[in-house]
C-alpha cells in the first residue's frame, strides 16, 4: 500500500470542499450553541437554505449567482426568525425539537413533487450553478497541484472557502470578545440572571440564531457552487450531528474550535477510509469489501467520539476547568 498516496488523499479531504461546508456550519453552530447555548439541532436547514437559494436563483430563475448570495442570507434570516420567534421564549428544549423537525420538513418540502418546478424534486437542481464564480478563477488553465489531488476548480473553491472561513472566524472572535458576546455567554450560563440585569434575552438569542444561520448558509452556497448540484437528500439530520461532533471535537465556545474540529474530523474520517480501502484492496482484510468502508469509518468515528467524551470531554481546545464548574 502506498502510504504517501493515503496521506495526500486524507489531507485533500481534511482541507477540501466538503470539510469546508461542515466548517461553515460549525462556525455558525459555535455562535448559537457554543457561546449562546442554543440547542439548534437543525443547522442543516440553514445550509440547505443557502444551497437552494443558489440553485433556485441561478437555475430556476436564471438570475445572477451574486444575487443568490443575498437571497441566501435573507432566506436564512427568515428561517431563523421562523424557528426562533415561537420557541426562544420557551425552555431550551423547545428550540431543539422545533429545529430538528423543521429541518426535516424543509427537506421533504423541497423534494416534493408539488414544487418540482422550483426545487427540482428528489433529483434536486443540477447544472452550471457556480459558473460566475468559476469564471473568476485566476489559476492558469493548465494548473495542477504537485501533491494534493484538487482540481484547478476545487482549488479555487478551497482558497476562497478558507479565506472566508478565516474571515468568519475573525468576525466571531470580534463578536464574542465584545460586550455583546458577554451577554450571550451570560445567557448560556443562566438566562434569568441576565434578564434580571435588564437585558432583552430574547433579542440576543434571536440575533445569535440569525448570525449562526447566516454563516451556515455560506456552507450551502459553497456546496452549490463547488459541486454544481443541490440535492435534497444530502441535507439529512445526520449532517447536523456531524457538525455537533466537529464542534465538540474542537471545543465549543473556542474561536478556533470549529477549524480544529473540522480538520481533525475529516482527517480521521478520510484517514480511516483510505487506510481501510487500501488494506482491503491489497487483500489484508479478507472478510470486508470496499463497499463496507463507508459505514465502518463512521463506526470508528463514533467510537472515537465516545473515547473523546470519556477522556477529554472539553474537546481538543477546551478548558477542563470550565467543565469542572458544571458539576458543582
Amino acid at each position, binding site marked *: 500500500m502506498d502510504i504517501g498516496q493515503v496521506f495526500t488523499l486524507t489531507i485533500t479531504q481534511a482541507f477540501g470542499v466538503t470539510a469546508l461546508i461542515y466548517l461553515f456550519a460549525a462556525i455558525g453552530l459555535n455562535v448559537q450553541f457554543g457561546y449562546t447555548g442554543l440547542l439548534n439541532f437543525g443547522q442543516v436547514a440553514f445550509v440547505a437554505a443557502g444551497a437552494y437559494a443558489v440553485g433556485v436563483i441561478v437555475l430556476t430563475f436564471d438570475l445572477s449567482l451574486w444575487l443568490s448570495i443575498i437571497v441566501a442570507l435573507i432566506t436564512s434570516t427568515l428561517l431563523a426568525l421562523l424557528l426562533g420567534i415561537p420557541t426562544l421564549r420557551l425552555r431550551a428544549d423547545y428550540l431543539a425539537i422545533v429545529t430538528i423537525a423543521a429541518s426535516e420538513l424543509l427537506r421533504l418540502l423541497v423534494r416534493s413533487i408539488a414544487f418540482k418546478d422550483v426545487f427540482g424534486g428528489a433529483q434536486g437542481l443540477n447544472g452550471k450553478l457556480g459558473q460566475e464564480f468559476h469564471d473568476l478563477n485566476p489559476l492558469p488553465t493548465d494548473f495542477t497541484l504537485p501533491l494534493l489531488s484538487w482540481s484547478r476548480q476545487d482549488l479555487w473553491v478551497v482558497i476562497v472557502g478558507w479565506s472566508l472561513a478565516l474571515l468568519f472566524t475573525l*468576525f466571531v472572535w*470580534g*463578536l464574542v470578545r*465584545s*460586550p*455583546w*458576546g*458577554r*451577554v450571550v*455567554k*451570560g445567557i*448560556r*450560563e*443562566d438566562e*434569568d*440572571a*441576565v*434578564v*434580571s*440585569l*435588564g*437585558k*432583552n*434575552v430574547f433579542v440576543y438569542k434571536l*440575533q445569535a440564531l440569525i*448570525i449562526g444561520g447566516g454563516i451556515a448558509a455560506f456552507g450551502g452556497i459553497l456546496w452549490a457552487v463547488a459541486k454544481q448540484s443541490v440535492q435534497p437528500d444530502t441535507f439529512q439530520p445526520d449532517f447536523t450531528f456531524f457538525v455537533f461532533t466537529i464542534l465538540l471535537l474542537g471545543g465549543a465556545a473556542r474561536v478556533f474550535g470549529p477549524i480544529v474540529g473540522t480538520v481533525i474530523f475529516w482527517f480521521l474520517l478520510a484517514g480511516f477510509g483510505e487506510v481501510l480501502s487500501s488494506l482491503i484492496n491489497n487483500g489484508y482484510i479478507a472478510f470486508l469489501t470496499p463497499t463496507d468502508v463507508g459505514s465502518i469509518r463512521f463506526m470508528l468515528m463514533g467510537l472515537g467520539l465516545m473515547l473523546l467524551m470519556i477522556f477529554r470531554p472539553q474537546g481538543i481546545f477546551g478548558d477542563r*476547568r*470550565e467543565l469542572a*464548574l*458544571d458539576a*458543582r
Partner: protein
Amino acid sequence: MPANTENTAKMTPGRAAAVEALRDVARVPGSPKPDPILVADQVSRQFGGLKAVDVTHVEIQRGAITALIGPNGAGKTTLFNLLTGFDNPDSGEWTFNKTPVAGKAPYRLARMGMVRTFQLTKALSRMTVMDNMLLGASGQSGERVFKALLPFTWKAQERANTDRAMELLGRFNLDAKIGDFAGSLSGGQRKLLEMARALMVGPEIVMLDEPMAGVNPALTQSLLGHIKNIREEGTTVLFVEHDMDMVHDISDWVIVMAQGQIIAEGPPDAVMKDPQVIEAYLGSRHGSALTADGASLTDDSQGGTT
C-alpha cells in the same frame, strides 16, 4: 418626643430620613407610606390549590431599608418573582415610581431600576467575576450587535464600567477574585457577587432574596454595612431575611408575611413583639399551631369550590 429626636441626631442621614418618614406611618398591614416607590394592590398567585401570594395592599417606602420576613413557604420569594415580572400573577396591579408595571417584561423592570437577586444564587459560572460584574452595567453600546465589532465605540465605556466594578468588588471583598471563574467561588462569595452585580445596574430599588444566607458572621457585619451604605446613597432596599438579629440591626421597616398574606408591618422593635408575628413564626416552625393549619384548610376549600 425628645428621646426620639435625640436618637435621630446620632443616625446617618439616610437612616434618619427613613426613620423620620416612617415615624407616623400606621403599624398595620398595608399601611400607606409618605413616599412609596412601589405600591401593589390585590396581587395573588395560586399554585394548584395553594394560594402562595394573596397581598391586598402593600407600599414600600423610598430610600428606606424594608425587611420582608415570614416563615418558610410564606410566599416571600413568590412575591418577589411577581413584582419583578419573573412570574405572572393571577390578579393584581402594582406601580413602580407611580408607573403601572404589571405585565411588563422582567428585563424592562430591571431597566426601569427595579433589580432583584435570587434566593438560589445565579452566578454565571463559566464567566469571570469581572465579566459577571460588567454584564450588570446598563446602557452599554457594545452590547448592540452592530457596534460590537467596533471596539473603539465602546472601549471608553468599558473602562469606566471596569473601574466601577473594581470599586464595588473591593467593597464586597472580591477584588482578589476578578479573574476567577464565578463558578469557582464559594457559596457565600457568590451571594456577594450577585449583590455587587445587581448594584452594577444602578438600581433605584434593589430586592435581595436572603442576601446573607451562607455568608460568614464576620463578613455579615460588613455586608450589613454595605446594605446601609446602599441606602445612604439613596437606593431603596427590600430584602428577605430569616435572621432576626440582622433584620433588627438594619431595617427601617419590617413587613411580615404568612401564608401568602401580609399579617403585620412596623418598625423592627414593634413587629418583633407582635404576638401574631411570634405565633406565625413559632407556629410554622413547630408545624402544630392551629391557626396555621386552619388557615391553610380554608384556603384549600376555597380553591376547591371556586
